[in-house]
C-alpha cells in the first residue's frame, strides 16, 4: 500500500487548490483538517460505485464549498448535481442518486416525494443518503413512515463538525446551537462539539490543559474526558499543537453580541451578512464602466465576494475599527499608484520584463482595493441609524430612545437588541418598564411576538428585576469593560472593536493568559455556571520543550456563537508583542446580534433592512 507522508500530501493539496492555501498560513495548519474531510468525502463517493448525481440540500453547498470544489466530485464520477426540491427528479443517466442533506424532517418529506414520483419501470437507479453532520433516528423513522426507507441502498453520515473558515478560525455552523442549549435544553450540539474536539485532538495532539466557564462548557469537558477514557489503552503520539483549550458559554457574556460590531468585517456582517465566507452586496458600486460604453444595463443581481485572509488587503483591514479603514485604504492606494507609476522608469528590456511580471499581482491588488473602497463607501452610506452601542446612560434616556425607535418602526430585531441590552446591564428591567416595552412591541409589530418575548425571557436575555443585587457594575469595573478614550486608529486595548466597550468573553480569555483566573475569583462566581480546570495526561516524551520566547497556543471555543468583533479582539491579542499567546478560534456558529436574536424568534420576520 502506498502512503504519502503528511507534509507531502498537504503540499500537493495546496498547490492543486489555491483556494485553501490561506488555511495553512496560521499558527496551526488547519489544512490538515480540511484534507481529512476531503479524504472522507472521496471515500464515501467511492462506496457508491459507478456514475452519480448528487441532490443537494441547498444549505449545505456553502459549507461544502469550503471543503471541496466540483472538480473533486467529478473525479469520483459525479456527473450531475441538482438542488433538492419537490416533484420528480430531473433526468440524469447515472447509476446512483445521492442525497446530501441535513437531518431535517421537512427535507425527508421532499426526498420521499422525489422517490415516489420516480418511474419505477424505466429507472433502475440506486438511491443513497448522506446525512450531514449526523444521521438521525427521527429522519429515518419519517422515511419509514413515508414508505421509502427500503429504497435506500446506503444511509450514511458525513461528520462535518468543525469546518475551517480561515487560518485561525473553525466553525460548526450549527445555527440552532444557542437556541437548543438555552431554550430547549437539548444538548445535542454539545455532543457534536465534543466529538469535533476529539477529531481535532486526533489530528493535532492531545490538549494538555482545559479551562472552562459555564454549564455547557462543563458538559463538553465531561464528554471529552469520557470519550478519552473509552479509548483508553492507546495513546496519541502526536506532539500537541495546542497548549490550552478554553471553553466559553455564550450565556456567560450575553451582552456582547447585542451591541453593533464596529470593526470592518463586523460591520459588513451586521449590515450585509457574511455567509460561509461570502457576502452579497448591492451591485451598483461594483459595475465596471468601460470607456464609451456609458452606463447601459447595470447589473441587478447582488455582487458576491469572497472574504478571507487569502486576500492580502482584506487580511490587513478586516479587524480594524471602521474609522481606521479609510486611512488604511488611502495608504494602500498610494502604494499601488506608485507601483503602477514605475512603468515610466522601466527603460531596459529587463526592467520592462520585470514590470510586466509584477503586473498580475498589481492588478489583483488594484481590484481588491476597488472592492473594499466600494464596500467602505456602502457602509458609510448606511450611517449611524444602525449602530447600537453599550455605554452608561441614564436609564430614562434609554427608555425614551427605545420608545422613539418603536414609534418610528425601526426593525423589530433592533428593538429587541436594545431592550435585551438594557435588561442584561441592569440585572433585569423594572416591572413597569418591561410591561410597557412588551405592550409597545406587540402593538407595533404584531401580537404573535408574544412567543418571541417568551423565548427571550427563557434564554435569560429579558427578565423582570428581582430583589437581588445587580452585579453588573462590579463585573464591569473589575474587568474594565468600559474604556474611556478608546483609540480607534492605533488600538492599545481590545475595547477598540466596539469603540470603547470590551467584550467580556475576550477579557476573560485575556486574564486567563495573564495573570490567571485566580485574580478574578469573585467576578467569576458572579457570572453564570461553574468555572473549572482539567488536565489531560500526555505520554512521556510528548511534553514540549519550549524554546525561549516561543508563544503558547490557546484554542478558544465559543459554545453558542461568536461575533467577528470578538474574533478581531482575539487576533489583536495574538499580535500584541509581549502577550506570549496565540489564539485559534472555534465556535458552534459565527453570529451577529441579528442572526442570534433571529434564531430565538418563533416567527422570524422577513429579512428587511
Amino acid at each position: 500500500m502506498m502512503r504519502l507522508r503528511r507534509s507531502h500530501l498537504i503540499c500537493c493539496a495546496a498547490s492543486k487548490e489555491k483556494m485553501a492555501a490561506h488555511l495553512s498560513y496560521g499558527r496551526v495548519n488547519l489544512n490538515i483538517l480540511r484534507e481529512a474531510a476531503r479524504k472522507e468525502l472521496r471515500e464515501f463517493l467511492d462506496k457508491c460505485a459507478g456514475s452519480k448525481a448528487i441532490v443537494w440540500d441547498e444549505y449545505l453547498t456553502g459549507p461544502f464549498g469550503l471543503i471541496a470544489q466540483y472538480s473533486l466530485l467529478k473525479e469520483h464520477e459525479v456527473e450531475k448535481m441538482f438542488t433538492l426540491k419537490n416533484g420528480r427528479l430531473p433526468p440524469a443517466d447515472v447509476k446512483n442518486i445521492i442525497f446530501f442533506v441535513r437531518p431535517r424532517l421537512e427535507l425527508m418529506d421532499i426526498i420521499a416525494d422525489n422517490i415516489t414520483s420516480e418511474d419505477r419501470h424505466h429507472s433502475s437507479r440506486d438511491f443513497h443518503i448522506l446525512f450531514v453532520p449526523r444521521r438521525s433516528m427521527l429522519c429515518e423513522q419519517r422515511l419509514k413512515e413515508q414508505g421509502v426507507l427500503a429504497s435506500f441502498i446506503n444511509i450514511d453520515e458525513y461528520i462535518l463538525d468543525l469546518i475551517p473558515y480561515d487560518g485561525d478560525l473553525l466553525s460548526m455552523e450549527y445555527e440552532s446551537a444557542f437556541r437548543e442549549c438555552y431554550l430547549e435544553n437539548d444538548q445535542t450540539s454539545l455532543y457534536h462539539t465534543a466529538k469535533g474536539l476529539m477529531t481535532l485532538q486526533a489530528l493535532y495532539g492531545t490538549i494538555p490543559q482545559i479551562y472552562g466557564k459555564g454549564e455547557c462548557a462543563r458538559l463538553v469537558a465531561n464528554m471529552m474526558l469520557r470519550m478519552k477514557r473509552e479509548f483508553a489503552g492507546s495513546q496519541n503520539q502526536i506532539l500537541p499543537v495546542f497548549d490550552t483549550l478554553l471553553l466559553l458559554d455564550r450565556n456567560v457574556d450575553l451582552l456582547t453580541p447585542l451591541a453593533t460590531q464596529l470593526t470592518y468585517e463586523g460591520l459588513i456582517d451586521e449590515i450585509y451578512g457574511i455567509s460561509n465566507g461570502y457576502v452579497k452586496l448591492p451591485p451598483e458600486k461594483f459595475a465596471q464602466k468601460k470607456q464609451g460604453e456609458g452606463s447601459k444595463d447595470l447589473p441587478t443581481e447582488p455582487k458576491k465576494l469572497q472574504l478571507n485572509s487569502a486576500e492580502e488587503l482584506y487580511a490587513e483591514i478586516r479587524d480594524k475599527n471602521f474609522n481606521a479603514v479609510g486611512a488604511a485604504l488611502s495608504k494602500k492606494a498610494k502604494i499601488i499608484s506608485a507601483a503602477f507609476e514605475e512603468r515610466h522608469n522601466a527603460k531596459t528590456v529587463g526592467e520592462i520584463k520585470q514590470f510586466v511580471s509584477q503586473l498580475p499581482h498589481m492588478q489583483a491588488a488594484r481590484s481588491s482595493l476597488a472592492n473594499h473602497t466600494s464596500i467602505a463607501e456602502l457602509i458609510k452610506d448606511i450611517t449611524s441609524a444602525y449602530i447600537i452601542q453599550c455605554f452608561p446612560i441614564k436609564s430614562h434616556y434609554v427608555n425614551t430612545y427605545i420608545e422613539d425607535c418603536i414609534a418610528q418602526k425601526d426593525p423589530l430585531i433592533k428593538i429587541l437588541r436594545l431592550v435585551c441590552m438594557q435588561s442584561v446591564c441592569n440585572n433585569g428591567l423594572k416591572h413597569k418598564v418591561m410591561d410597557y416595552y412588551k405592550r409597545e412591541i406587540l402593538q407595533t409589530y404584531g401580537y404573535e411576538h408574544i412567543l418571541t418575548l417568551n423565548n427571550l425571557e427563557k434564554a435569560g436575555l429579558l427578565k423582570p428585576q428581582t430583589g437581588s443585587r445587580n452585579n453588573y457594575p462590579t463585573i464591569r469595573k473589575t474587568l474594565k469593560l468600559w474604556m474611556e478614550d478608546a483609540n480607534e486608529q492605533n488600538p492599545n486595548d481590545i475595547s477598540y472593536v466596539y469603540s470603547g466597550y470590551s467584550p467580556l468573553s475576550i477579557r476573560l480569555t485575556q486574564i486567563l493568559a495573564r495573570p490567571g483566573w485566580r485574580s478574578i475569583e469573585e467576578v467569576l462566581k458572579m457570572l453564570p455556571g461553574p468555572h473549572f480546570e482539567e488536565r489531560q495526561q500526555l505520554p512521556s516524551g510528548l511534553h514540549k520543550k519550549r524554546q525561549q520566547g516561543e508563544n503558547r497556543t490557546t484554542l478558544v471555543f465559543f459554545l453558542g456563537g461568536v461575533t467577528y468583533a470578538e474574533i478581531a479582539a482575539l487576533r489583536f491579542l495574538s499580535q500584541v508583542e509581549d502577550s506570549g499567546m496565540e489564539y485559534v478560534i472555534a465556535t458552534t456558529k459565527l453570529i451577529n446580534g441579528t442572526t442570534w436574536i433571529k434564531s430565538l424568534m418563533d416567527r422570524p420576520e422577513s429579512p428587511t433592512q
Partner: protein
Amino acid sequence: MTSCDAGCVLPANSFLPFCVDNLNKESLTLYVQMIKSKVDEEDYWHSSKFKAFTFDDEDDELSRLKESRQAVNNIRRLVEEDDDEDDVERVSWSGEPVGSISWSVKETAASSQRADREPAFPKISTDTPSISRSQSGYSLSSLFKGKPKVGNFQTFSDALTDSSVRLYAPELRKPKSEYKDYVSDWSPEETVQRLQQGKAVSLERFRTLQDKLLLLDHAIAAHDGNVITAVLIYLKRTLCKEVLFRELESRQTALRHFIHYLSETQNQRLLLELHRALGRAEDAALLQYKEHLSITDENKRRDFLKNCLSLPFSAEDLAHVQDHYTLLERQIIIEVTDRQAERGGKVEIFQKFPRKALILNMPLITTLYYCCFYHYAESEGTFSSPLNIRQTFKISEKQYFVTALAARAKLKAWLDVDALFASRNWLGFTRKKSPLSFQRVVDILQKNSAPTHVLQDYVALVDDGELRLTLAQKHKCHDIVISTYRDMKDRQLLLGYRGKVVRGSAEERKIDDLLSNPQIRWKN
C-alpha cells in the same frame, strides 16, 4: 453606578426619518451635531469621556475614501485593456468561483435541461484506477469511527497493523466494546454506544420498566440527542402515557427532547396532555396559541383565537391574546365594509388612494395608521374610528400622535396636522405642544413633502438653537435663518446667506433692510 442605573446604549438618534430608508450624508451630519449639542446641554452621557461611535472626522474620513476611490479609477484607465483578466481565478459575476460547488449545481442542472441525454461533463472512464486516491493519506472515518460498516469486516488486528492509524491517531482507534459485534446481549451502556455509532441494535430486550429507565439514563448521560430520541420513541411505544410522563418529570433533559420530538412530529395532542400532566399550563397555552400562525383563513383564525382565551395563560399574556383576538375581529369587519365602499366607487378617498394591501393580520399600529388614513373623521362610535381604536387598545399618546401625524401628512391634510397640535393646547393659542420632539415632527412632515410654509412653523418650534438653524437651512426656511443671524448680530453670515436666496425675492429685500439698519450693532 451612582446617579444612573447602568443604562446601556447609544446615541439618541431621534432624528431618524419616519420610514427608515437610506439616510443621506446630510442627515448624518445633522445627527452628529445633535449628539454634540445633547452632550453639552443635557448631560446626555453619564460621562462625557465616552464617545459615541460616529463616522468620525466626517470630512477627513470621507476625503480619504475619496483618495482611494480616485486612485482606483486612475489605475483602471491605465490597465483597462487587461481588466477582464485581472483576477487570478475565474469568478462569475455573482462571485462564485467557477468550479465551486454551488456554481456547479446551477450549471449541471441547467445543462441537463438543455440536453437531456448528453452528460454535461465527459464521463470519466470507469477503468481509471481509483485505488490510489482513496488509499493515500488518512481519513476521519478510518480514524474515528472505525472502518465504515460497508465492505469487509475489518478486524481489530488489521487496524493495529495500519501504520497510518498508529501514526496519526492511535487514541481514536475503536473502543474495546466493538469487539463483541456478534454478541447480542448488550448492556444499556453498550446499547447506547452502538446507537451512537449508528449500528443496528434491538431495544426490545429492555422489557422491565427498570431496564428501560436504565437505558434512558445512559442515553441521557451520553448527551446525544439522537440516541435519547431513539430511546424515547421506544418508550413511547411500550409504556403507558401516565408512567412515561411521570418518569420524564424527573429527567428534564429527556423531557425536553420528548417535547421537541412531539412538536417536530406535530403531535399536538400528546404534547398538550404532557404539559398539563406536568403542570406546565402556561407553556401548553402558548404552544396552542402558536398554532394560529398556520391558519390562513381569517375567520377560522379569529375563532381559533377566541378559543385560546380560555387557555391558562399568565394574566399578562392573556390580556395580549385578548387584544389580538379583538383586533382581528375588528379587521375583518373593517375589511368587509371597506371592500364594499371601494367597489361601490362612491367614497372619494378609496378612489383617490386605492388600497394596496389587506388590513387583515396587520399589527395594531398599522391598523391605526390605516384608519387615520381612510377613516379619520369618523365619530368615536364606529369600529374603524381612530379614537375608538386608541381607546380600546390603550394606545400611548405618543404612538397615537406619531401615527396620526404620519397618516395626515401623507394625505397632505395640513389643517388636520395643525389641529393635532392645537388640540394639545388648552391655554388658548399661545403655543403648539407635542409629545414628540419638534425635529421629529419636521422630519416626518418633510418625508411627506410638506411645503416650506408648513415646515417653517414647526422648525421654528425646535428648542435647540443650533439644530433649529441647521434644519432651517436644510429646508430653506429663510425667515428663520435670517432672523437667527440677526439675533446673533452676525453680519458676515447674513451677507453670506444673501447669496443663497433668490435674486429680487422678499427674502433678499429683508436681508438688505437688515444690513442697512443702523440700529443693529453688528458684532462683525
